[in-house]
């Protein structure tokens, strides 16, 4: 019996954020019911494999648009078709404005034990730029209500590289979140994705340049660590023991099954993706998948993912590439991009900022 993680993609949003290119569409109660049924059908499809799930992750979209009842139906099906570990990490991504005390209670009762709240910033002007429909105060309220409802593992998202953002405002946001006694922060650098409403000169002209963004990132990493949030991945920081177990599956080439439109899987020795089409997902007896890689986790992929993690790449695990890699290390160390200790190569904060180039240089 093997272990896996379940990723459920919830493709609904009350309002699409102008910077977001994840797959989602508008919400209706009817669609969300049909969607829930389709998720259940697909979970059943895997039942025959007798898998143990030790992480479940509701991502989106806005998973918190699902009702407690719908979430419960899905969790019940997971319990029926899989062995859910007693200490399973069950995460739900949530928009602060959807998190009423009642909602939080029903989510918790459904079996969700970790929340990833899309706070993005604790500065109202930055939130306004992002077009979020909540304020810093509303976000803080969502966190404390969640804690009152029994959640003791809460992550908040933070965005850096915003217009007018300074190392001080980044400090303030992190400090404010830290005071709320949360366990985890994901901090992403805003990237203008092609085809999103942000993909225009007016927005680009407002954004800090690469130099400024780099400074913000480095200030952010320092502030995080000063507040006890230790970096464990390019964009992820946690209090000790609160690293996202589900996300670590991605970075450690472990098994995961994705259900829902646009969801990705790495399961049974293959990577595959579900068509980004909610209607099709709802109507198909089993979701349509496309294999994207039939021999995943080769050296390049393994090294690429490992180097995104603070724990780094253990060269003893890649003996046939060791010599090639070691030759390149001195210059990278001189430049302050990496650390190399006990056979393990790991990126510094400066190295994470240049991770594409550093990784490409090391593995190709």
């Amino acid at each position, binding site marked *: 019996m093997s272990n896996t993680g379940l990723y459920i993609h919830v493709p609904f949003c009350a309002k699409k954020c102008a910077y977001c290119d994840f797959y989602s569409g508008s919400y209706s109660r009817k669609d969300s019911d049909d969607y829930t049924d389709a998720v259940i059908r697909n979970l059943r499809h895997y039942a025959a494999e007798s898998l143990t799930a030790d992480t479940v992750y509701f991502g989106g979209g806005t998973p918190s648009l699902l009702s407690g009842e719908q979430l419960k139906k899905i969790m019940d099906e997971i319990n029926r078709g899989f062995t859910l570990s007693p200490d399973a990490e069950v995460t739900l991504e949530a928009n602060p404005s959807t998190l009423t005390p009642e909602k939080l209670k029903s989510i918790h009762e459904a079996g969700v034990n970790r929340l990833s709240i899309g706070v993005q910033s604790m500065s109202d002007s930055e939130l306004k730029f992002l077009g979020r429909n909540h304020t810093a105060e509303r976000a803080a309220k969502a966190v404390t209500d969640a804690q009152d409802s029994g959640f003791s593992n809460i992550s908040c998202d933070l965005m850096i590289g915003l217009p007018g953002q300074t190392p001080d405002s980044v400090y303030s946001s992190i400090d404010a979140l830290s005071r709320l006694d949360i366990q985890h922060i994901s901090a992403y650098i805003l990237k203008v994705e092609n085809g999103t409403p942000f993909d225009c000169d007016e927005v680009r002209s407002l954004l800090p340049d690469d*130099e400024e963004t780099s400074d913000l990132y480095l200030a952010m990493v320092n502030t995080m660590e000063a507040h006890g949030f230790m970096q464990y991945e*390019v964009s992820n920081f946690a209090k000790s023991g609160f690293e996202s177990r589900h996300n670590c599956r991605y970075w450690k080439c472990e098994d995961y099954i994705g259900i829902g439109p646009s969801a990705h899987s790495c399961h049974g020795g293959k990577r595959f993706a579900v068509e980004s089409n909610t209607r099709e997902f709802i109507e198909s007896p089993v979701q349509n998948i496309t294999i994207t890689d039939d021999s995943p986790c080769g050296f390049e992929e393994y090294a690429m*993912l490992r180097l995104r993690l603070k724990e780094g790449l253990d060269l003893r695990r890649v003996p046939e590439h060791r010599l090639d890699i070691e030759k390149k290390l001195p210059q990278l160390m001189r430049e302050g991009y990496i650390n190399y200790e006990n056979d393990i190569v790991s990126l510094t904060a400066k190295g994470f*900022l*240049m991770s594409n180039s550093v990784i490409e240089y090391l593995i190709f």
Partner: protein
Amino acid sequence: MANEKIRNFCIIAHIDHGKSTLADRILEKTETVAIRDMEDQLLDNMDIERERGITIKARAVRLKYTAKDGEDYIFNLIDTPGHVDFNYEVSRSLAACEGAILVVDASQGIEAQTLANTYLAIEHDLEVVPVVNKIDLPSADPERVCTEVENVIGIPAMDAPKISAKMGINIEEVLERIVTDIPAPKGDTQKPLKALIFDSYYDSYKGVIIYVRVKEGTVRVGDNIRLMATGAVFNVVEAGFMDANSLVNNGSLEAGEVGYIAASIKSIGDTQVGDTVTNDDEPCDEPLPGYRKVNPMVFSGIYPADGAKYGDLREALEKLQLNDASLSFEPETSVALGFGFRCGFLGLLHMEIIQERLEREYNLDLITTAPSVIYKVTMTNGEVQYIDNPTNYPDPALIQTAEEPMVKASILSPSEFVGNIMELCQDRRGIFKDMKYLDDTRVELHYELPLNEIVYDFFDVLKSRTRGYASFDYEMLGYTPSKLVKLDILLNGDVVDALSFIIHTDKAYSRARKIAEKLKENIPRQLFEVPIQAAIGGKIIARETVKAMRKDVLAKCYGGDITRKKKLLEKQKEGKKRMRQLGTVEVPQEAFMSVLKLDS
């Protein structure tokens, strides 16, 4: 056909003064080409020629004209290259004619090139028939231009035909002048064969086709001919003339005629322009005067941007050489650029044309090194070396004297720009010789200039400083001692051989600074800082730094779409393949090219 009914002539004109258009009108009027078959500027059949409005290779066409006297005449129109790089070819084309039509733009007057070619025609005893073109333009001033022709060239011009080739005005008058003013060819058909090669090209079915002017004797199909400079002997398969679109095998060519010979000749190297064709069984006593072998003056390394295309580049050069004996190339290797060829050209335009043809006709993406001239270096042990590649420049300690080639330059310009021109020529180490006024508004300046000062961008800069009005022509003068140094460019501490060049000491500092700046602009920021240095010997004289890039990260990594992430990385890696990897430094193709375009 009796000789007195033949007229052999060429057209001399400055670029854009309407040579090709006039040629087209003549072809049309003589009904050589049905009007519906006319393509504008028929004689220029290479794409590049048509676009640049210049003629690269000489060509000849035979036309039939019924004159007002009721007689039928044969016209042989020999098209000549208009550019100084092809000066020798021009002189051979002129030697094939008895007359030249001088086309002058009715608003712009005489230009340097026209003047040089007209003098050349007069030297060859050609009858020059001036024609004033573009009289339809509002700015046309035919009277002034006629006066200028009389004053400057010293030939009567007041009754010159005033025409518009574009509008087809007064073309008949030009045709009549050809009949009345240009003498018929002389020559004895019974004497031993003596024919001048003025052009040749390679035909994949017939082998080399040589264009000749028969001066004496007769050549017939079946004859054994000897090319006197090379000594090669061939059997004539075809002899005839060219109509506008094809070769017409006539079986023979006689003294006075212009035509072609096909003799299953495999290599164009055997058919040197200027050489004399004679009969192998009954040879003439001595060849026609004026033959010389053409030597390349300007050299440059040509490399495929994609190293895998080396074979394609070789093949393309070989094919171009079939038609262009003046192009030389030999393999060379560069640490920076890999495998390529050192190519020799007659001049700058010739170089540009070859590069453009390689890129356009053979679809090659090229990296070209800075053009170099041939330096003459006398070593301390007395040995003399000719250096056309800066990489091979000897250790200065072993050099006794270094010499560089000089040219005699002639510049024609409206007088208001004289100050600008003098400044430019002085800046290019020019030695002022003389200046004379052609009329109230136009001057001719003579300078001696080092060839290496004009191989980069002299003409471009001259044009921009004279709002496009100046024209420029040069001829080789020989070598003069000079204070030369080899300037090396280092990236990350390593010399990049493809960027080295030889330069006069006084110019080294400013050039070094400019190159370092250009490279800084054109080398993208990357993982590691890139120090750029320029050095003479071991001494660094300029320095710039491309700072390391700071941010290159995919921050977002969830939803588990690892395949996309990996592909992005692979794509980034692919993108860098288009750059040259020099140690850890990635240098884009543009960086190599940018140093060729230093603004002055």
